């Protein structure tokens, strides 16, 4: 699931991914964040502190959301990502297109 809130002090949309973002949970996450990106047109911070699992549909959704953010000249920063999830971004080459910070940084 995703919990998202716009922070006006930093002009960032902070979205916390929780649990499993898989083929079942991805559509809801994608729809929710797409609407918020359209609304706020701000940079997005994806907090993965409580993310335990993400599959290719979740990764694909993040790419689609990044494209949407770029339409407004904004980006996505991924923070607190666990090493074994970061590995999936590395394998798929997606770490090159997202700004990423591993857990504890």
């Amino acid at each position, binding site marked *: 699931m995703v919990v998202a809130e716009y922070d006006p002090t930093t002009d960032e949309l902070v979205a916390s991914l929780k649990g499993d973002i898989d*083929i079942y949970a991805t559509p809801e996450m994608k729809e929710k964040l797409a609407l918020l990106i359209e609304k706020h047109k701000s940079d997005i911070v994806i907090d993965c502190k409580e993310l335990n699992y993400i599959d290719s549909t979740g990764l694909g959704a993040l790419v689609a959301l990044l494209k949407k953010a770029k339409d407004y000249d904004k980006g996505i920063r991924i923070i607190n990502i666990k090493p074994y999830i970061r590995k999936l971004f590395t394998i*798929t080459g997606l770490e090159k297109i997202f700004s990423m910070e591993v857990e504890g940084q």
Partner: protein
Amino acid sequence: MSRDGVTLLIPAQPEYLLVVRLTAAGLANRMGLNIEEIEDVKTAVAEACIMLMNQPWELEDITLDFRHATDADVFHATVQGTGKTDGATMDREQENELSRYLLQALMDDASIHSEDGYIKSISMMKKASL
């Protein structure tokens, strides 16, 4: 007949992939794989199911056959889809690109079997590190 393996038949619906991941992780643990390897197996097996689901066919069931090679700690899985294609061919390989990268990078060996452009089954193996 004794066997060291498990066969799982699931409806081809996204909500059942949690069951697949938990089963794959439990069996990989039993087969002697370490925590990182179990994560790899869990992800790869789920991606194989996603590849089958991500095709424009009437996919009904997915059968997952997990085997343990007892002479070495090796996890084997075959993931097979049963469905109707109405004889139509397709070419939507690109949609499965991320799944394919993950599957091939996370497992020691993975092979994808297609007919008429449709992926019908995927076999994979991972050996436990020493």
